[in-house]
């Protein structure tokens, strides 16, 4: 605890790197997965294929992917870009399965009502079905954001920056205080991000707020 309090400046700098490495992939993954997920939703073969591809990607250990990626894409080994690409792949893999499932869950009468008031297929998707799938998306985003934060920390064993460097430094210089500081800092970071995503999800789905149903 003492270490953390005396190294707040360093903690802030490392936390920024950590957030950059773990959250850029979340944003990129969301931007890829939502259109892709909507596209494959009503296409059974494409959906099965994407699901299979997604679960194979998800099975590849992240640490291994950080090392293998430079062979596949033109980045240097131990480059930050590898981490961002790898984590984007995981994020996309998780969300691309959640999107069609969330769309499946939209009740038929809601779909019919939207069609009845004259929404086009695209309008219906953008204004009715995707907004209703936000809770599932938020849940997926929370899982993936927290997992990414933990993965970036693991990446420090192969020289990736962020708060994980406190683990490797603390271990090498036998300072358990520094490791504990790192654990606390990453835990707090993960919990804060989790709450931010949860809150953002609540804000954009006002119809889902607790209390509203009781008042009806």
């Amino acid at each position, binding site marked *: 605890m003492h270490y953390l309090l005396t190294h707040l400046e360093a903690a802030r700098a490392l936390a920024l790197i950590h957030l950059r490495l773990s959250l850029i992939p979340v944003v990129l993954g969301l931007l890829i997965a939502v259109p892709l997920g909507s596209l494959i939703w009503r296409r059974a073969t494409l959906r099965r294929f994407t699901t299979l591809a997604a679960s194979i990607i998800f*099975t590849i250990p992240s*640490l*291994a*992917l950080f090392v293998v990626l430079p062979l596949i894409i033109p980045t240097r080994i131990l480059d930050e870009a590898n981490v961002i690409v790898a984590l984007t792949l995981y994020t996309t893999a998780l969300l691309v399965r959640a999107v069609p499932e969330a769309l499946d869950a939209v009740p038929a009468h809601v779909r019919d009502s939207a069609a009845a008031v004259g929404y086009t297929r695209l309008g219906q998707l953008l204004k009715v079905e995707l907004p209703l799938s936000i*809770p599932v998306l*938020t*849940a997926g985003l929370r*899982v993936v954001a927290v997992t990414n934060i933990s993965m970036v920390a693991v990446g420090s064993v192969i020289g990736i920056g962020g708060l994980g460097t406190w683990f490797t430094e603390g271990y090498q210089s036998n300072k*358990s205080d520094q490791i504990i500081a790192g*654990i606390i800092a990453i835990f707090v970071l993960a919990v804060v991000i989790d709450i931010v995503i949860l809150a953002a999800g609540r804000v954009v789905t006002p119809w889902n707020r607790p209390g509203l149903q009781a008042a009806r």
Partner: protein
Amino acid sequence: MNFLQQALAYLFTADNWVGRAGLGARILEHLQYTAVAVAVSALIAIPVGMLIGHTGRGAFLVVTTVNALRALPTLGVLLLGVLLWGLGLVPPTVALMLLGIPPLLAGTYAGIANVDPKVVDAARAMGMTEWRVLSRVELPNAMPLILGGLRTATLQVVATATVAAYASLGGLGRYLIDGIKVRQFYLALVGALLVTALALLLDGLLAAVVWASVPGTGRLRRGIPQPLLDDEVRLEAEPRGRGVRAREPSPTVEEW
């Protein structure tokens, strides 16, 4: 710049597979860390998940525990454990449990809580004790979700057991981490390829087990469920205050 050829050459040299620090020994060590961590996680998470799923009390505890454990960094806990308790099986087991418990707990809880209430009531009406309801009715019905949790847990643990090598322990991480350290990237690639192969193999094996556990003949029609932290996502997607329940049809106007 031909790491891949070098890595393959290393893999296909028989001498590299034998001995105390050979590939064979490292794979066994890796599997040992994985098996111990998953087994201990299961021993803790399955009974707790069964109890909470059966009584319906403490569901928020499941969500909180799952979130908190996932937020704790595995690597930090592992290295701290080695500094505190020394080298051995304890630090990697404790650290990997952080990854093993959440999916098992979420899967068991969701599996038990999702059993059709009519089936449970029928079992009670036949005079089964609570214990028998749980062990003979709820548990078999929940088995696919519990084993699905086991599958996710194993996948995450086997992938992350690699970090044990950083704390001077064994496992396939030795190649990955030592390879980076001494700038022999083909060695890192050997580790990466083997860990990936091991993960894919275990995952395929467990997928078959999950499929075989679906009660009745339903499995013949359904495909194999994919593990993508499904239960954890589902657990969090549910509105607060209600456990994980099967989706019910929305009430029609007349019922209001």
